[in-house]
């Protein structure tokens, strides 16, 4: 189902994603959800987190690598095949290490797509607004993740839902339903725009 392209290393069948945002947007959680979903599907996956001591508002970045064999990728990515920009306050709208032509998914409620230039395949999703309309403003990250996964087909949508639920602590179980709707709505708004992971 999924075509994964090399991150440039000797036929390594690995796909590298960078997610940038600020603390409080769920950047770490969606990275973890995607990595957990890929692992549950029997793929090899790695998650490297980079965030400061702030609970909210500070820079929050995460990189995810998914492959079909034991990974060669480094925990500090030299380049990435795709990026999700939930907020461009710290990393800018285009990460330096994003490959030309790569998928660049923007939260256009916050990031002006005009700032993304023309070197990448830009897909804009009003994630914050969509999440608010769903009555779950904290779920904008899952809107982005749902859209990203629909665009790339890296894992099955149900795997994301299962992973999200498995990562919810007991006191957050009430969010499972709205998070699921956020994932599905994100996928719906990019329907027809699938770019695949192999472009």
């Amino acid at each position, binding site marked *: 189902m999924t075509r994964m392209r090399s991150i440039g*290393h*000797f036929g390594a069948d690995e796909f590298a994603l960078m997610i940038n945002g600020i603390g409080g947007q769920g950047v770490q959680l969606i990275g*973890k959800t995607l*990595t*957990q979903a890929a*692992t549950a599907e*029997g*793929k*090899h*996956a*790695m*998650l*490297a*987190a980079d965030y*400061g*001591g702030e609970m909210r508002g500070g820079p929050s970045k995460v990189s995810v690598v998914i492959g079909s064999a*034991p*990974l*060669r990728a*480094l*925990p*500090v990515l*030299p380049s990435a095949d795709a990026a999700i920009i939930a907020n461009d306050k710290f990393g800018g709208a285009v990460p330096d290490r994003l490959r030309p032509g790569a998928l660049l998914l923007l939260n256009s409620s916050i990031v002006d797509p005009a700032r993304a230039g023309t070197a990448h395949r830009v897909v804009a999703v009003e994630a914050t607004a969509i999440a608010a309309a769903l009555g779950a403003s904290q779920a904008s990250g899952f809107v982005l993740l749902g859209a990203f996964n629909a665009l790339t087909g890296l894992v099955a949508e149900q795997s994301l839902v299962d992973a999200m639920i498995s990562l919810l602590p007991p006191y957050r179980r009430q969010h499972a339903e709205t998070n699921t709707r956020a994932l599905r709505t994100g996928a719906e708004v990019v329907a027809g725009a699938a770019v695949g992971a192999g472009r």
Partner: protein
Amino acid sequence: MTTHPATATTAASELRLMEGSAAIAESAILAGCRFFAGYPMSPFTPLLENMARALPAAGGVCINCESEIEGANMVLGAASTGARAATGSCGQGIALMQETIAEAALNETPLVVFNMARNQQDYFQATRGGGWGDYRTIALAPKDVPEAVEHTQLLFHLADRYRVPTLLYGDPLIAQTRVGVRLRRLEFGDLPPKDWALDGARGGTGRSRQTWTWAMGKATNPGPGPDGQWKRIAAKFDEIARTEQRSEQRYIEDADTVVVAFGSAAKFVEYVVDELRAEGHRIGWFRPITLWPFPSAALAEATRGARRVLVFELNAGQMIDDVRQYVHDRSTVQFIGGVSISDTGLAFGALLDAPEVRARILAALPATAGTGGTSAERSL
């Protein structure tokens, strides 16, 4: 209580997404670790937290101590009863433990120290120790989480086999990166019985035993004394130095340039050397897996044909002392590493990055090397 390795229980295990600290904790428990004590210090803290969560359920005890000194000495006490026991910290915390590590080495108490270091500035204290006496610490430096999981179990084995303290040289990337790992009990062979272990007046053998660095024994049953004890221990470390060297290397056969690195840094070097090889450079890499005993014979052999031996480490130059000592030709050695610390002070800085490593290696190569030159030029 016996902590001798059980027979192999290596049933197939599934791939689980785990943070390095959690994977190391579970691997230690699989190895039979039943006592852990330490004091929080990032990036070691998550290992302590994971132990605190998982050890009681495994029938063990984890204690969050008032200081690193207390933790190390609690572990010394637990290990003297024959339990597999471990502590950990990083940097200054490991420095505080050095007196206890030296005591354990000289009174022959096996224990494991998890140094989840903030960077590579702990090489000296991992391999030389800050304690007194003629001892070294077996130190394994994994390059990533799956290897750290394996090293964790090997360190408990080596500690028991030689009755020595052993040390894992981890780092923030190993502590915090999440990857899929398969956890299972690993077997490394038979171990001598722990007939030296204190087993109590009731329920045990009832025999009085003594664990003493000076080994003077008792009036009625004298020991070998410090002269005999320390000569024997020195000979034991000589034997370990001969038999426990571990290393890995690639592309050495025709390499003009060999890059030496350890731990996570070696993984970055490996990645960059693959790139440079593909571009036509005659370059290879060498990785000490045991920092002590340093893989002296393998390094000498691997650098026999090299014109340049580049040392990349995230410090001001510590492992380079060992490289200079054992390399085929000392005049070929160049330092391309450096101190590089993140803004938080808790992790690696900007130098641990593939483009940076690449730039440092290329700067050390002659201008004609690589794809720019003809094959005749490259052979110069």
